């Protein structure tokens, strides 16, 4: 938190664990149950009212319930409600009145409220807003508002605390909320913490959760497919074994039929173990689940995913994607893995370069009967570009040296090529090609 403001600009925040804060901050906070929301916001407003601030609470709770919660915590709330020092607004009517407003208008609204509050002799404007569930289908609009408010209230005598119900937010929505606010409140046992470190931490956790969710989806699909493939021969084995036992217990035993069914048991058990071998092969990337795929879409997804990692290393990612790029037959997840790997390598390669412009460019274009993707960094370069594809080759302190080897086997399983070349100036370009879908070859 910036500490170059005059002391007079600080005010008591009221949230347990956080002492004084400067005016002009826009904070987001996540809760799971309405009780948590009340528990956090009541002391927040109590502190504001105690400091003679004008308070606005936009809440999904009924206004009666919110007023009762405040009344329990401090005396004289009714009088403050009557004279308008404390205002409680129902989130639904708030959402309705904001309908159609642009970002600028929303920001101006809060600045106007501040001016009015100061003119009435209040110390400032303190607000808490929770409309996230009402914007569930219109998240971009809400994020637009939040971004505009962040910019507008800097250096003003406004405190703004936005609450998000994590049960109703998508993981990506939470990430964006963290991005559009200046700070994130996070609960640690009884107390709360708020600083930029917390924000990084939250982002990291969110990203890990996102990745985990993606993996889970593919694993779930995979295990359903495996279960089906294994269950067919297993069902046959079970039925044949039951038949075999019955032939044997006949009087006299029907040995010929028993032998036949026993042979089938052996055959089907083998085919079940073939399935298991095929699954192993899948993990070795020798079999792929391919679909017609526009590589540009995958590049764009990866760029979004890697934005934070890139800006953390002061790297700018540029894309130069050929419009109307023909599609190729590829496994989407594996393509993501390859491109993420190449981009991450590029970012890390520029880690040690100090003074140069850190730029990573991704280019796509048609190259004969192939689609070609170049990932170009301005790092220190490679002495022997072919070495990097060998398993267990690494120049990094951490890492297995398997990334590029796996990337190459994925691309080759797609009947493409992956190679690296030294750039004329600085750095390395990793290139891969994938054959164009046959019916898009003209």
């Amino acid at each position: 938190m910036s500490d170059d403001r005059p002391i007079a600009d600080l005010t008591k925040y009221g949230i347990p664990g956080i002492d004084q804060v400067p005016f002009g901050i826009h904070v987001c906070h996540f809760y799971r149950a309405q009780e948590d929301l009340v528990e956090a916001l009541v002391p927040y407003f109590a502190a504001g009212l105690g400091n003679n601030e004008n308070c606005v609470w936009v809440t999904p709770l009924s206004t009666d319930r919110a007023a009762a919660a405040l009344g329990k915590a401090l005396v004289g709330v009714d009088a403050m409600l009557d004279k308008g020092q404390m205002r409680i607004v129902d989130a639904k009517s708030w959402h309705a009145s904001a309908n159609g407003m642009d970002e600028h208008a929303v920001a101006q609204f809060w600045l106007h409220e501040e001016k009015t509050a100061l003119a009435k002799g209040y110390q400032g404007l303190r607000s808490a807003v929770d409309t996230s569930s009402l914007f569930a289908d219109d998240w971009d609009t809400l994020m637009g508002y939040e971004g505009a408010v962040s910019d507008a209230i800097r250096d003003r005598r406004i405190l703004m605390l936005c609450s998000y119900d994590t049960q109703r937010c998508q993981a990506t929505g939470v990430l964006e909320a963290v991005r559009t606010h200046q700070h994130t409140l996070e609960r640690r046992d009884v107390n709360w913490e708020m600083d930029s470190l917390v924000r990084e931490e939250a982002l990291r956790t969110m990203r890990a959760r996102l990745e985990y969710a993606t993996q889970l989806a593919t694993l779930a699909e995979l295990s359903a497919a495996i279960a089906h493939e294994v269950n067919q021969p297993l069902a046959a084995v079970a039925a044949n074994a039951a038949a075999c036992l019955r032939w044997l217990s006949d009087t006299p035993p029907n040995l010929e039929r028993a032998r036949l069914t026993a042979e089938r048991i052996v055959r089907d058990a083998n085919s079940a173990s073939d399935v298991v071998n095929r699954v192993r092969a899948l993990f070795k990337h020798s079999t792929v689940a391919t679909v017609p795929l526009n590589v540009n879409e995958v590049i764009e997804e990866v760029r979004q995913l890697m934005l934070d990692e890139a800006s953390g290393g002061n790297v700018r990612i540029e894309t130069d994607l050929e419009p109307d790029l023909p599609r190729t037959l590829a496994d989407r997840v594996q393509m993501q893995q390859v491109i993420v790997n190449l981009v991450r390598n590029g970012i890390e390669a520029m880690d040690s370069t100090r003074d140069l412009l850190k730029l990573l460019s991704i280019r796509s274009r048609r190259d004969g009967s192939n689609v070609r993707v170049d990932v170009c960094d301005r790092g220190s370069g490679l002495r022997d570009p072919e070495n990097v594809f060998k398993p267990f080759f690494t120049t990094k302190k951490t890492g297995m040296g398997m990334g590029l080897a796996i990337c190459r086997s994925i691309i080759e399983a797609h009947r493409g090529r992956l190679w690296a070349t030294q750039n004329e100036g600085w750095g390395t370009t990793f290139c891969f090609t994938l054959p164009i879908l046959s019916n898009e070859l003209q």
Partner: protein
Amino acid sequence: MMSTDHLVFIVDDDDRVREALQELLAATGLCSVPLGSATEYIAYPKPDVPSCVILDVELPDINGLDLQRQLGDRYHPPIIFVTGHGDIPSSVRAMKAGALDFLTKPFSDQELLRLVHAALAQDRERRARQADLDRLNQRFQTLTPREREVLPLVVSGLLNKQAAAHLGISEVTLQIHRANVMRKMEADSLADLVRMAGSLDIPAAHSRHA
């Protein structure tokens, strides 16, 4: 066509499963026909013997549940569904549409055989009922229009005199019609005729006190 007193249809796209099920049924003395798709099953001529179907839900041409829906209200032998992965919504759907049971592969042989026997018994009983009804219908077809008018009046319990008055004929003529109805319907007694009328959905036309 084989001549047996029952038949089990096995509809599954996996030939290993078809073969194994056929073997299991054969080992317990049951006759079966293995079929690889819903289309084959629909095209297969069905002999008039008690039967049932062991139907895989995941068929290549038509999903087993859709096949069940297509068969719709037309009478159909009992269906035992089997699936590689039993999900609750499809089992609920199948059971609501009248499936006998829903088994998840791999299933126990006792469970399957118990269901097959239950299904065949259910179909046998239904066929017997249907055969009775067919016979009654054939007899009913031999009645003259006047006899068909007399039948509901008689089974309503009207006296001969009342029934005759209702039709505007003499009591003697009515008695002749009534005797013909009893003979053609092969009814031993009035109670027997009332039961037959019930099976044929012929409503009692008149109350005795009307």
